[in-house]
């Protein structure tokens, strides 16, 4: 009986439990136009990876609490002092100093607009978003960089004012816990598990 893979950290080390990989027998690949001669084999493989967010962990934890965190360089000797980064950057790209983590939820609620967008009809394996996926790039006032995310309600347009929503119920602790809806969207229109 397989057991779901889980990981905990203790004493700065990973403690793993359960099954991280499953072995399924391979099968031959045969050429039907050539008397069923052997061509190759399938290589079935399922593996669970362990991934550390490192200094970005606070960003993903905060999404589950309805907060959008960014970072800012506060190094007085850095030419880029005061620059705010969203996506969240652990280190300043200029001085490589550790950035200050800031809460920019209010900035996002008041100033987010769609910089560009696209509608994705086909996705790759392992996608969990409903299709078509409305990818949007969001810009904010006073923020140096542009965030990639998705619009959960309505149709995107360049310049559209949007507000963030957060999957605070059963969060995935991934970037998918953050989505956006057009400004003025009613609470009852939000996807299950999401809130403003």
């Amino acid at each position, binding site marked *: 009986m397989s057991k779901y893979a889980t990981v905990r950290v203790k004493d700065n*080390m990973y403690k*793993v439990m359960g099954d991280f*990989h499953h072995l399924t027998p391979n099968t031959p690949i045969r050429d039907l136009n050539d008397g069923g001669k052997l061509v190759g084999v399938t290589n079935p493989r399922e*593996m669970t990876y*362990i991934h550390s967010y*490192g*200094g970005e962990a606070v960003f993903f934890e905060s999404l589950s609490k309805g907060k959008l965190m960014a970072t800012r360089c506060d190094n007085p000797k850095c030419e880029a002092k005061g620059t705010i980064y969203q996506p969240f950057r652990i280190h300043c*790209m200029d001085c*490589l100093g550790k950035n200050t983590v800031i809460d920019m939820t209010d900035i996002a609620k008041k100033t987010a607009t769609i910089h560009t967008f696209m509608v994705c009809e086909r996705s790759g394996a392992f996608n969990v978003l409903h299709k078509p996926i409305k990818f949007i790039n969001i810009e904010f006032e006073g923020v140096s960089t542009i965030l990639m995310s998705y619009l959960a309600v309505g149709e995107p347009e360049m310049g559209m004012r949007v507000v963030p929503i957060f999957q605070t119920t059963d969060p995935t602790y991934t970037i998918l816990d953050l989505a956006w809806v057009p400004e003025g969207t009613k609470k009852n229109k939000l996807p299950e598990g999401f809130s403003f």
Partner: protein
Amino acid sequence: MIKFSEQQLKIPKLMRPVYLVTAGQSKFDRAFPHKRTEELCVDALTQAAEMINLTPAELKRHIHTCYYGHFADHFGDQLLGEAVIHDRLGLDPLGNIGIKTGGATGGSTLWEAVKAVASGYSDCVLAMGWERMDEVPTDEGNFLISCAADKDWESPLGHIYTGYYAVMAQKYWKVFGKEEESFRRTMAEISVKHHGYARFNPYAQAPMKITVEDVLKSPVVAYPLRALDACLMSVGAACAIICDEKTAVKLTKGTKNKPLRIWVTAGSHSLRPADRRDMEIPLLPNETAKQYKDLGERFPGGERYPGFTGFLAARMAAWYAYRMTGIVDPIKDLDVIELHDAFTISDIQTYEDIGLRPYGEGRDYVESGDCYHTNPKTGKPGRLPSNLSGGLIGCMHAVGATGIMQTFEIATHLWNRWAEIHGDEKRWKAFDRKKPADWTDLQVKGAKRALAISHAGVGSHVTATILMDPDHLLKKDA
């Protein structure tokens, strides 16, 4: 039979002198649950800057192109991780490229970086290597590493590289070890030495005070290789700054780092040892054909070269490197070396490939005490100390970073900064490691020339990195 043409045996020549100016590295460990790879790379680059009294921002202004060593995309489940690191280091829009040659990735990254400066394309380049090997449990890690073997012919046979080295160990032990228990103990002594030296290295992952008996009682992974015969699986980053003469002088002015001349050469051989055809031994400057005429008589079974007992790629890397730099006898001409001790057996094989001892007599490098910082038999300095960092067995094997870590280590000896860097209480504390009460200064006194060997699984790629104090060159036009 492999035969080389005259063109293939051309002695490499750099178009202008190239220098190692500074280097840095992160802490190495089995896992970093609280750090992303980019954070480790920032740690390495920050140390490189601090070594020459610069801020990272000041150092970055000099960098023109970037060479990134990262072996296994599938380990971190991140394709093109080099682009992520380049962005996070704030080095866009400079040109960058990823390099991967298995376990030799770090050495190959330096190889490319040196050529970029030698050609005149760049005056200052960053060579940065890293590996993230904690995103899968160890058994899956062994599987992912084994994907570097031939996927149809070898990988499915156990999915573990220790096995591919174990067949070499069996053959070598029978032919050159003459099935003596003493040979097995010499192999174990290498592990004792490397785990022991790791105790004095704050960056090292596996400091251990162990005995030969401990090694011989450790669990068998693939007989005769046991857990303590094997290298580590690590996470970490290391970097080096490579420059032309003018930039090197400018960047090191008023610092403790003297620019060091650097050369890197490379060799390769089939991924599959079973495919390695018999051939004549390419001779190093300290060897003669005559000395190998009766090799098969002295060591029955040893007449086949390289067979399962030698690494032709290592021999060729040394063949080019020694002639390029004027080295005749590495024991006399070099002061300190770092070898790619993936396994205790491959360490011994490499002693012969690079001419520390003739083929068949590698064990003597350990048994004589020459390989130690202080020869345990004489109490005098070892003739050519190796792996004072702890090597891959005691310090780390974060694959893409390994060859650069080795170069960092030998450079600290040539800069006479080994004790300052490895003995710094603040560093031990920052790494949350306890400096041992018997911490020992392993600085090789007066070191002027050094070598690092970077090696990919079963010797498919090997590089030789040579550093020299520019005032102690062996060949004027090198």
